[in-house]
């Protein structure tokens, strides 16, 4: 209505603007995707951000890739088989070309996988260092040797940093050169990168899956949420990630775009300081905190209903996680009060500091404020300390720095249960923060790391998960659910692994 009114008032301007908008959508077939972050460059082994890999998947190919359901599917590797406890053979697809026209061969696979596996200075090393060597059998076949049995080798090969790059090209330009002018074999080839602005990619005609329907794929960096939503509503971008929950209705009723839930493997938790002298060293106090928090209400109020309550770092799509911890929570304020009384704290006698970041996770401060109200309802005084992300991180990263409870969200880029619990082993990062050590737990996790039999592995990990949950050194709150906004002219279903795989996006049929 408004638009029509102004079109009447300013016929020329409006006509020109509308015409040009129509043109770019109908003829050029560009697809514009917007996120809040920029890529750090295309040195694919030197970043650790899922949202960055979400762009890379369009440029690079992987040996195996997850499909829309999260299951592993053949990609560059057409088949694979376990040849021994520590070796796996991969047959490579024929006729795969890099963007510069050269053929992708076994030596490229060896080169690409061995770098993160063997070079301790690249960021992704710790996720690949179970790999000992990539043996070239012939141009179309490799055998990956691991140091010990590695039940999650395929998980490693389908995630951040497992794209295959052309060896000859990296040899020629070096990783620094590659970081600004990458070449892969994915459906889109790199054209241009303007920092903090855009990555421009164009369709690769000779991609083995076929040519994508889009001529250009443009990834834009728009840090400000309201601006990103504005671009989605004005048609400036076709797909926008992390739509604030309060804008869902506005987007859906705009007629221009729709929102879809976008599952994340991130689980929000509270780390408890269990060290001597902390009131949270008393298991009754930790249980009281656990029982005092109504996760369902937390999700409904602070998160506008987006999220699933959990009692462990579990989510659909992760392998080897006990799903009985998913979609469940404990809430019993009366028992919480009793536990506190038993522990010697009357109403208002216990005060706990709740620390967290401000602006790192969606609505993080709001979460803390709601949790504080819930804890205060059972008689625990709460002091909130919210910090800008980098300050918070340096504050809680050092061992023993958490004062009471700390709000932390962890994702799971390996998409496997082992990664969710391994950092809680004694001496590892989580345990350093909370002070929790459990021999049996460590044994279980270490066992699972070298057990190939999936059933046994599940058992080990399931017990480990439950021991961690019962320890209440980490209180699990909920699995995060993001929202993605998609222009109605584009048909695309987000996959559960947080990747922006745009080969599957198609113009919507009207």
């Amino acid at each position, binding site marked *: 209505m408004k638009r029509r009114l102004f079109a009447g008032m300013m016929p020329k301007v409006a006509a020109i603007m509308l015409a040009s908008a129509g043109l770019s959508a109908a003829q050029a077939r560009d697809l514009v995707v917007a996120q809040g972050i920029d890529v750090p460059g295309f040195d694919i082994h030197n970043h650790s951000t899922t949202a960055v890999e979400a762009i890379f998947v369009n440029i690079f190919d992987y040996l195996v890739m997850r499909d829309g359901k999260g299951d592993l599917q053949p990609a560059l590797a057409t088949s694979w088989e376990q040849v021994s406890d520590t070796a796996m053979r991969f047959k490579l697809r024929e006729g795969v070309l890099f963007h510069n026209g050269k053929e992708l061969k076994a030596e490229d696979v060896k080169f690409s996988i061995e770098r993160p596996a063997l070079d301790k200075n690249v960021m992704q090393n710790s996720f690949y260092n179970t790999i000992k060597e990539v043996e070239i059998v012939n141009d179309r076949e490799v055998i990956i040797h691991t140091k010990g049995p590695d039940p999650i080798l395929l998980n490693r090969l389908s995630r951040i940093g497992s794209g295959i790059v052309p060896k000859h090209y990296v040899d020629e330009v070096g990783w620094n050169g590659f*970081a600004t002018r990458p070449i892969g074999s994915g459906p889109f080839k790199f054209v241009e990168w303007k*920092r*903090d*602005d855009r990555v421009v990619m164009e369709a690769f005609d000779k991609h083995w899956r076929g040519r994508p329907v889009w001529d250009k794929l443009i990834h834009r960096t728009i840090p400000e949420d*309201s601006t990103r939503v504005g671009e989605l509503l004005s048609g*400036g971008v076709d797909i926008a990630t992390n739509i604030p929950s309060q804008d869902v209705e506005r987007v859906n009723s705009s007629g221009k775009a729709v929102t879809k839930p976008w599952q994340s493997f991130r689980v929000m938790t509270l780390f408890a300081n269990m060290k001597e002298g902390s009131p949270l060293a008393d298991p009754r106090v930790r249980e009281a905190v656990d029982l005092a928090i109504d996760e369902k209400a937390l999700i409904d109020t602070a998160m506008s209903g987006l999220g699933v309550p959990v009692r462990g770092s579990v989510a659909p799509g992760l392998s080897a996680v006990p799903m009985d911890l998913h979609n469940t929570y404990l809430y019993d304020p009366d028992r919480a009060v009793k536990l506190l009384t038993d522990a010697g704290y009357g109403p208002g006698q216990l005060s706990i500091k709740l620390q967290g970041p401000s602006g790192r996770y969606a609505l993080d401060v709001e979460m803390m404020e709601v949790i504080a109200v819930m804890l205060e309802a059972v008689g625990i005084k709460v002091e909130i300390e919210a910090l800008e992300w*980098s300050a918070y*991180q340096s504050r809680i990263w050092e061992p023993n720095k958490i004062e009471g409870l700390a709000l932390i969200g962890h994702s799971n880029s390996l998409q496997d249960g082992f990664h969710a619990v391994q950092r809680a082993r004694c001496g590892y990062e989580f345990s350093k923060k909370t002070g929790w050590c459990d021999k049996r737990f460590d044994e279980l996790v270490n066992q699972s790391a070298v057990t190939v039999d999936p059933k046994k592995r599940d058992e080990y990990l399931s017990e480990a998960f439950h021991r961690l949950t019962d320890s209440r050194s980490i209180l699990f709150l909920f699995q995060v659910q993001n929202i993605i906004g998609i222009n109605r002219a584009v048909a695309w279903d987000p996959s559960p692994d947080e990747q922006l795989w745009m080969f599957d996006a198609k113009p919507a049929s009207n």
Partner: protein
Amino acid sequence: MINYVIWRILQMIPILLGVTLIVFVLLRVSGDPVLLMLGEDAQPEQIEALRLALGLNKPLYQQYLMYMADLLTGDFGNSLRYNGQPALQVVLERLPATASLAATGLLFAVVISLPAGIVAALKQHRMADHIASSFSILGQAMPNFWLGIMLILIFAVTLGWFPVSGSDKPLSVVLPGLTLGSGLAAMLTRMLRSSLLEVMQQDYIRTARAKGLSQSTIIVRHALRNAALSYLTVIGLEASALMAGAVVTEQVFAWPGIGLLAIQAINSRDMAVVQTIVILSSVIVMSMNLIVDILYSVVDPRIQHG
């Protein structure tokens, strides 16, 4: 004149040294950039290795000396956030974007304030004056980001006249330019109005008026020329505020300039980039001031630099 310019340029050196020292100390006593680079999934051995590789284990003064030595050879360090790209290059490639934004902001400020200030002075205490003055004062009383968001909502999302964000379309610069220039426009309008009023009280204007010259002729021929000096002064002084305002504006409009880079760099403790930005922007600010000083003597030959 040339001596004066050389002298002024030499004066920049100690100031620049002070600038580098301040920022270096601030950033090095801050948190650990390695942790920020690696993210939540980092392993302790990764952290140690990267720290060593970046020379972050050396004493502070050594790190500073190393840094200064590098600066003198044109090496401003490498960006942590951008995986070791040269910081100077990362910053310099943003300069055109910020320059065009600032120029547009300045242009808007001048284009708005000249007529608004003149009209307000001519129609003192009348409706036009009140309207111009109210807008100019509101421009100073409203946070920049707020104005930017409102402009997007009205002119980009609802009316669709301009792009919401980015810098790739011809009309992209309009809304961010307006946002950035609003404060300066407000200040210049107020300044112009009152200095015109002041000039018009003076004898030679009264004489001109007595000679029967029209009000507008007087303003254009005499009063404006005399008000130009203080007009220029304000622009020179506001150069630094324009740079500062770009930080907020660029964040709102996803404008890929130095301001957006600065925020991202500070957030990720990308020390080399932050230092380069601060050094570069202080050079720009000092140069702008110098240019304004030189313009002074062009506008008003009575001012001489000895």
